[in-house]
């Protein structure tokens, strides 16, 4: 530390001097002003929550801090020194590490190799594999995941939650002075979240500056010292102490969300059984029995790997049941491939939209038409088929309120919420009897989430049976008319609307959870 900065830290409260300070940052991309005069700082030992809807500029701000992008205007000061990051390497050297939401693991390589990516322990030119393994083991022990995640496991063989743990472990093992966490809990269950929160508390106590990005207000309340809300590339609000969730959400969306969740189904709206499963099993599922009724939203809660997605895939014919009975509209059915299920009136909105749902380079309209075309006959299916024509698709997209400059626009340029609505339109063209939503609001901003919930309710009112698989417990509680809980491939609990979070977690984990503050 040079004399001048030492003097300055003598004048100021040393704790208050920020570990990083970003001032008047602006950044534009062709056609978009992503950030406009944003200032942001984080002090040692502080957890600074950064919230905002998708597209508000959080990711851009973080990418500037981590050297992925360079700002058009503005400065970054790290420990009193102005820096310019032209490559992520420079940010890493300055002690800034980031847990990215995506793109940061190598599925083909081991946990240890991933943990030390780009900073391998070496003896001369040779990588010291043994030292890396030992160090990895030590880091993983902090998470209590030592037995589940072994250093020599190939990352691609781990489930999503474990991969997320590896990511977090990597960022923390860098011993960075500033750690940015971009929705680190997206794939974690409650127990794992709690482990992470305790680690964050430890890091805070040891003087690490933590920038925490999340959509979950509960986590803001649990962790944050300060909150900054970004909206449309600008700082919409900054709270020196954490206010109540309503205040934050209001700042995020710029207004009150009056009816965030739609009303429950009235008794008169619930019709007869559409789909019934009795005693069905396969490799991942055991003795599944339940019924979906017309007009009703059935929520499926449970931990990662509890079998909810496997159930959806079984109903959809992608990984069929090997025994048991499925009836759809009163007749027994067995789907051994998705085509059969689609023809019979089952639609799935996949959890990983980019990988499983969207044709990113094609137009919004083509994305809507794709399934109808595929089933609509060979010759004239493109413009008009037995399900729908182009005008009808535009109408459907209008009704779903898909916001796009034009339906000719490429799908990849739409926001997550609008992409999801376009996929709903795709299924509606086939007039499905059962719609399965898998993680319907993952990566979708608060405003659009409410839109999706209301849309699901509207679809139910129009007579469809809705199956909603979600790891976001509050949204299941808020939307579903009945809640089924899965654990280890079985349905272990059934709750009516109004059940408490604790009841459901108890069923999902099979144990009493020590609930932290």
């Amino acid at each position: 530390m040079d004399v001048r900065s030492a003097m300055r830290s003598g004048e100021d409260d040393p704790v208050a001097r920020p570990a990083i300070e970003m001032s008047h940052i602006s950044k534009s991309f062709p056609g978009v002003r992503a950030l406009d005069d944003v200032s942001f700082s984080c002090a040692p030992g502080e957890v600074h929550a950064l919230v905002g809807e998708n597209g508000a500029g959080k990711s851009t701000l973080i990418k500037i801090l981590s050297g992925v992008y360079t700002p058009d205007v503005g400065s970054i000061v790290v420990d009193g020194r102005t820096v310019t990051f032209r490559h992520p390497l420079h940010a890493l050297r300055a002690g800034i590490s980031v847990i990215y939401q995506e793109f940061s693991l190598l599925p083909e390589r081991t946990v240890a190799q991933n943990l030390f990516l780009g900073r391998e322990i070496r003896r001369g030119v040779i990588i010291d594999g043994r030292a890396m393994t030992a160090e990895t083991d030590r880091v993983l022990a902090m998470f209590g995941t030592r037995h589940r995640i072994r250093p020599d496991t190939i990352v691609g063989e781990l489930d999503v939650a474990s991969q997320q743990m590896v990511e977090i472990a990597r960022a923390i093992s860098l011993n960075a002075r500033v750690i940015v966490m971009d929705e680190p809990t997206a794939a974690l269950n409650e127990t794992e979240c709690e482990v992470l929160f305790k680690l964050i508390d430890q890091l805070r106590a040891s003087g690490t500056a933590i920038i925490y990005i999340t959509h979950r207000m509960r986590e803001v309340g649990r962790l944050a010292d300060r909150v900054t809300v970004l909206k449309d590339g600008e700082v919409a609000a900054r709270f020196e102490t954490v206010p109540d969730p309503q205040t934050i959400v209001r700042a995020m969306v710029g207004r009150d969300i009056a009816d965030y969740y739609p009303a429950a189904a009235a008794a008169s709206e619930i019709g007869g059984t559409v789909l019934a499963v009795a005693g069905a099993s396969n490799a991942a599922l055991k003795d599944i029995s339940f019924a979906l009724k017309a007009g009703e939203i059935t929520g499926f809660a449970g931990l990662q790997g509890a079998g909810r997605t496997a159930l959806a895939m079984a109903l959809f014919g992608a990984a069929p049941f090997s025994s048991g009975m499925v009836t759809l509209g009163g007749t027994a059915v067995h789907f051994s491939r998705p085509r059969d299920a689609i023809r019979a009136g089952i639609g799935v909105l996949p959890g990983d939209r980019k990988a499983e749902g969207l044709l990113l380079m094609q137009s919004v309209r083509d994305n809507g038409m794709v399934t109808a075309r595929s089933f609509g006959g060979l010759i004239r299916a493109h413009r008009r088929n037995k399900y729908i024509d182009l005008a009808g698709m535009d109408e459907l997209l209008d009704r779903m309120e898909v916001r796009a400059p034009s339906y000719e626009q490429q799908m990849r340029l739409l926001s997550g919420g609008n992409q999801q609505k376009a996929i709903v339109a795709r299924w509606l063209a086939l007039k499905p009897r059962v719609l399965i939503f898998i993680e319907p609001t993952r990566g979708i901003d608060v405003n659009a989430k409410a839109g999706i919930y209301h849309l699901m309710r509207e679809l139910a009112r129009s007579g469809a049976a809705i199956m909603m698989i979600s790891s976001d417990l509050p949204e299941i509680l808020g939307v579903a008319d009945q809640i089924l809980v899965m654990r280890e491939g079985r349905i272990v609990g059934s709750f009516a609307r109004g059940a408490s979070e604790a009841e459901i977690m108890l069923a999902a984990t099979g144990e009493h959870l020590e609930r932290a503050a």
Partner: protein
Amino acid sequence: MTDMLAPAPVRGMLRFERIAPVLLVVAALLVYAAVAVSTRQPQYLTVDNFIQILARSIALGITAVGQTFVILLASIDLSVANLISAAAVLASVIMAGQPSMIVPAIAAVLVLGLVVGVVNGLVVARLGVNPLIATLGMAFIIQGCLSAFVNNFAGSVPEEFQAFAYGQVGPVPWSLVFLTALAVIAWFVLRFTKFGSDIYAVGGNPDAARVAGIKTWRVILAGHVICSLTAVIAGLYLASRLRSGAPWIGADGAYDLQSIAVTVIGGTVLSGGRGGIWGTMAGVLIFSLIDAIFNLTGLAAVVGVQGMLRGVIIVAAVAFYAVRSRKIVA
């Protein structure tokens, strides 16, 4: 308590793929032995004969080492065949039968490889041109230069230099020792050095590599330089074996597509980040054994059968890997 969330039992599947090329080699060896025995030609089952089989694929083996580096980087190099021709011609013209010119010729050829590799690497990594197009363009450029200057065997290499192809240590040809050493070095680099680790990272997920602080374009550049250097060394070997260089020797051997084929048979995926040098060497061995089996049966005389079988094996091998990786995802 979190242990009950143990991941689905996919363990080990990725690893089975790694020994698949070895199984293919063993199968090819067994077929070879069976054919030799059943056609009563036991003289082809000696160690000496086996060494001869290996020695036929030296140029392909050397080129494939380099090709493996670029394919691991999710790049590819289609310019190697013409670069081999250019290197052979250049070496043979500079040497012109003079032993004193051996060193300058080798130096010139290595510089040629360096220049081509740097250009390929910069065009791919800095300009972002698709590597298929970038290296195809380079292939045309080299071919054009060659046909502007030579249209037949040009120059000659002195006897001393022919030792590279014809010299032996005991029963083993020098060139085979050289190829083995090259493979060992490549294995060491890929497996034990930071550069090797960077190659897998950049090939597997360039964004992840970048945010982990790796300068990805430098790694891609280095990979292309290595590939071009192995190609010019293969050119030197062919000049030594043919005693002169001709502008068609690389294209005749189809070293571009063959080196890609053996790499892919060896389990290195075109999308990058997965594979390794021993798989590639197994691929080379499989191709050599196919040729040997055809020679034994006398089917080699039937035009085209060999090519067809190679085609079937390439597609079957890649189909096998594709099916395996689909199971891992499921």
